[in-house]
């Protein structure tokens, strides 16, 4: 616990130092220019950054002294994974991050000019889903309460969120939600297919339908709209026909 507080304090001190330097002096290779402290009318845009950074540095120093004087303790705030798990979790996160940021748009295929948007979208979906499935599902098939299990579950949540962020714009909400909910459910402890399939469908197609058409929330449609829209419309038509049929006969 004590070590964690010390590390957190050091991070905050580094942050304050960074804002002080960028605010007052500017860092040219980060596109930041110094902010004027004073102008004709009064305090300028640099006034707040400088004073807040100085206060934060002082408080950070004080907190560091305060914490370092406290006795050490044995409280471990975070789960401690075995080396195997650390490698698995970090490796998985890394591959997912790279896959997420590099492949949804398939820059290589695009530059050569191969395939339509749909083909590229299809390829990237299969690839991304495969990578994510391999990394999140396989190592964590039996969720347990050990620290290793906890770390793998946390890594799965973070990695799949990264992947979802990368997939949203190129592939659309429906596909992203389908891949995200399906894989995360399995990663957090595989439920039976009987629940998994309807839940995933409702989370992707159902949520999209309600929010995009019902509440007019602007969501990315993705390259499969021509294919998914008839499915949705058909499903809704079928559902209203069935419910209408039942309400007619139960009246």
């Amino acid at each position, binding site marked *: 616990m004590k070590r964690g507080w010390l590390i957190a304090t050091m991070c905050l001190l580094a942050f304050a130092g960074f804002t002080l330097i960028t605010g007052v002096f500017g860092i040219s290779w980060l596109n930041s220019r110094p902010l004027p402290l004073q102008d004709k*009318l009064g*305090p300028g845009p640099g006034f707040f950054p400088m004073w807040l950074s100085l206060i934060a540095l002082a*408080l950070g120093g004080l907190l560091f002294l305060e914490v370092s004087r406290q006795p050490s303790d044995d409280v471990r705030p975070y789960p401690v994974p075995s080396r195997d798990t650390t490698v698995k979790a970090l490796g998985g996160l890394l591959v997912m991050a790279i896959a997420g940021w590099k492949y949804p748009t398939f820059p290589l295929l695009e530059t050569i000019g191969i395939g339509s948007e749909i083909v590229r979208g299809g390829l990237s979906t299969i690839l991304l889903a495969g990578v994510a499935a391999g990394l999140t599902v396989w190592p964590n098939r039996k969720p347990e309460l050990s620290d290793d299990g906890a770390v793998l579950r946390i890594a799965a*949540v*973070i990695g799949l969120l990264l992947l979802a962020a990368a997939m949203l714009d190129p592939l659309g909400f429906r596909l992203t939600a389908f891949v995200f*909910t399906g894989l995360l459910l399995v990663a957090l402890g595989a439920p039976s297919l009987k629940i998994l399939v309807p839940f995933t469908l409702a*989370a992707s197609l159902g949520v999209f339908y309600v929010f995009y058409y019902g509440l007019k*929330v602007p969501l990315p449609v993705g390259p499969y709209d021509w294919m998914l829209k008839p499915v949705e419309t058909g499903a809704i038509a079928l559902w209203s026909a069935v419910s209408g049929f039942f309400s007619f006969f139960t009246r």
Partner: protein
Amino acid sequence: MSTFQLLLNGFGDALSLQNLTFALIGCVLGTLVGVLPGVGPAAGTAILIPLTFKLDPTGAIIMLCAIYYGAMYGGTITSVLLNVPGEAASVVTCIEGHAMAKKGRGGAALGVAAIGSFVGGVFATVMLVVVAVPLSALALKFGPPEFFALMLVGLCLVTGLAGKSLTAGILMTVVGLMLAMVGIDPVRGAPRFTFGVPDLYDGVGFIPVVMGLFGVAEILATAEKPVREVVRTNLSKLLPEPEEWGRVWASIARGTGIGFFLGLIPGVGAIIPTFMSYILEKRLTKNPESFGNGAIEGVAGPESANNAYANASMVPLLTLGIPSSPTIAVLMGAFIVNGLTPGPFLFQEKPELVWAVIASFFVGNVLLLILNLPLVGLWAKILEVPYQYICVGTLLFCILGAYSINQSVFDVVNMLVFGVIGYLLKKLEFPVAPLVLGIILGPMLEKSLRTSLEMSAGDFSIFVTRPITLFLLIVAVVILVVAALQLAPKEIREAKGD
């Protein structure tokens, strides 16, 4: 027009079929947010803001407010049946409420909590009606120096009254203020800390940050330790024994008073009134040995305080434009998204909206009493949904909500980053609430400080020559001194923020 007439007109709007539906949807969603462990009112309200993008502003605000106080009601259910607070303000309810559930009196605990919440909420709203007009008239006389001092008092309260370390609390506030500087300078319009990234010109984005710190972070914590145990208890008997009623009403009255007065002060946070009420009930009781073993006063008092606080904290938001907790800050964000600036001017510019919203508080409290008394069994069933579905569903809505604010993936990544930071800080028990309030108050604080100094041509004496400003600044100093000397009761100091 008199206040009463304005309120009557408000009722006319709030009771229209459309707004009634929005209030009902808000109450149901809010109770759900409260019931689901892992989604507090702040994250819940933030996630559901996109729901309201295409609604008319009155309906949108009515619904989001209903989500807020609905979550305050719903948090009790989880506390009683799971011994896990559905939201931070129900921490205290776990103590006696869960003890009652284990003795088979879960129904009575939930019933008393619902009645207490109703009384607290309605009383606070009546008082809101009474004080709103005079207070906003007073606030109109405030200049930038007064607002600066008032916000400082709020920030001092947030940092001083909650958290293990005062230094860490103040540091987190300052870091929040620093994060708020990213984007366009509120006075001169100069870009700051944008590093040439177009997405940063809008700032760090308050809503994704809240979703991350309070939503994603909670989910990560749940994913780490997913075990929980629902206590099966008797929910058929929802009312206390006849001989308990006297004590219960007295507790409800005391809790309501505490909650209301603390709700008026910006910065107190939802958790402190409940702790104060619990301590008071424990000191006043005739049989202290019952406390810890399911004392009904220990549920009735804090739950009334909780909801009286929730409704009273709308007073500083609506009259002064100052949010007093992260959840209220999210609501303020919702006002701004809908093109409204809460504060004294709102009463003059959009009286029909304000009064419709206030009237909807009465409607909402009635709806919640109905939802929570006869239908409590239904909510208890939701607790049996496996945690995986709750986690996945919440995260999906987080992605949807963060994306739809600006139709930008940047906000989704932003949310994830703050989710990881929030998880790490939460596990360390590092204060997070001050950070959030710093981010929302940052631009306003800076603007008022710099305009004050422009008024005085750079002379800092403007803050001591104006009586109200001077008084407020002294209050801020006193709060910090009290916090530094650890004069506040231990239970309050150890309570974590919202």
